[in-house]
């Protein structure tokens, strides 16, 4: 079945206030900027946002933050946007900080039917405080829970009609993992090509993970 095609504005109809959203990208590379801008223009609010960064000041998710619509941010590196620190200090948002490898694995687990996993990362550090730790073969591991979302907003390079995705260089980053870990996946792409024209060996995200396509 072909993926549903919408404009960025129309695609926002699938999002509800209070949703948990995953948003792809590392820095501003691989962020679905058109989708984020369309989200900023809605009246929707109270989001838990799972994303490596919360944009930069006034850019990408930084816009959503500055309009007071993020209730909680889950990610690894919010230092790129000092506005996150300010909002946190003022008690306007909750923040959950994870090591980046733990963040990725939590996304992968979330999309793979694995509720939690043990990782050596952060064992013996403040980021493991309050988390279950267990020793395997003499090494300490931390129990981390999977991440899942209602909706993911991701960026890919090309899609075919079915929604098979290929990515572009280091803009791939968290996008394929988020497509797996959300109930509904909205993808911003540079181009949609006919079914059968993407090399099947090059497809990174099979179409079954993709629901809605928006051209950028």
């Amino acid at each position: 079945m072909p993926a549903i095609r919408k404009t960025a504005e129309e695609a926002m109809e699938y999002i509800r206030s209070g949703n948990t959203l995953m948003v792809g990208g590392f820095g501003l590379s691989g962020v679905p900027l058109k989708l984020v801008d369309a989200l900023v223009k809605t009246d929707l609010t109270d989001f838990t946002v799972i994303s490596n960064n919360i944009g930069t000041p006034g850019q990408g998710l930084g816009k959503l933050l500055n309009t007071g619509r993020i209730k909680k941010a889950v990610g690894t590196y919010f230092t790129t946007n000092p506005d996150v620190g300010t909002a946190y200090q003022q008690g306007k948002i909750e923040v959950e900080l994870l090591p980046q490898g733990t963040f990725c694995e939590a996304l992968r687990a979330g999309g793979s039917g694995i509720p939690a996993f043990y990782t050596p990362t952060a064992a013996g550090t403040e980021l493991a405080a309050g988390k279950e730790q267990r020793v395997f073969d003499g090494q300490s591991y931390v129990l981390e829970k999977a991440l899942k979302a209602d909706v993911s907003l991701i960026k890919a390079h090309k899609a075919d009609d079915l929604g098979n995705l290929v990515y572009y260089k280091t803009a791939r980053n968290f996008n394929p993992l988020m497509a797996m870990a959300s109930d509904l996946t909205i993808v911003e792409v540079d181009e949609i090509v006919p079914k059968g024209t993407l090399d099947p060996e090059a497809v990174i995200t099979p179409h079954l993970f993709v629901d809605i396509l928006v051209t950028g």
Partner: protein
Amino acid sequence: MYTQEVRHSIARRAAQELRDGDIVNLGIGIPTLVNNYIPSDFNIHLHTENGMLEVGPSPSPDSVDPNLINASRQPISELPGASYFDSGMSFSIMRGGHLDATVIGALQVSQAGDLASWAVPGRTVLGVGGAMDLVVGAKRVIVATTHLTKDGNPKILPSCTYPLTAKQEVDVLVTEHAVFHFSEGQMTLVEIGEHLTLEELKAITPAGFGVHPGLTVAKRKEAIH
């Protein structure tokens, strides 16, 4: 305050710790300078945690691609044989023990090989990034850092007072004055700059360390400041 010459001196010495054929991830700060000093006859394969192997040098300004960046969000280029992968694969490479080495900066290092590199007490720090995974996973962790803070305070301590990045994961510590090795919770001096005595080094190094019987004295005149 440290000069660029001191930072380059540390990077040059840290580069000598790499081995031909190594898969390497370079952290931010002084470690990024290491790339300038890799011996020309070495094949070093650079990995960046945002999803690429065979990272090439910074491109000329007219060929910058905003979607081809390293983990410091700086533009990079692609060498022949490059590959791209998602962040999950990238951290499997790191945490799974598939990196031969990482060169990483530090705020503090303890005599047991603990590393503190991401947070300062009393300040809200909302970024940890990939450092914890890198240090836990890489086969060799080479810390490249100035011997003292920019205010002249010691960084190489009996135990870290800042929040830890990882416990007992540092293998080699390179500063402008010395090189230390770590094994089973013990720190050993293996190289000292000819510009200072062992007593002078001990005076700026609160951490307890042994001295290797084959201690090398190295010429590091650019380190004097």
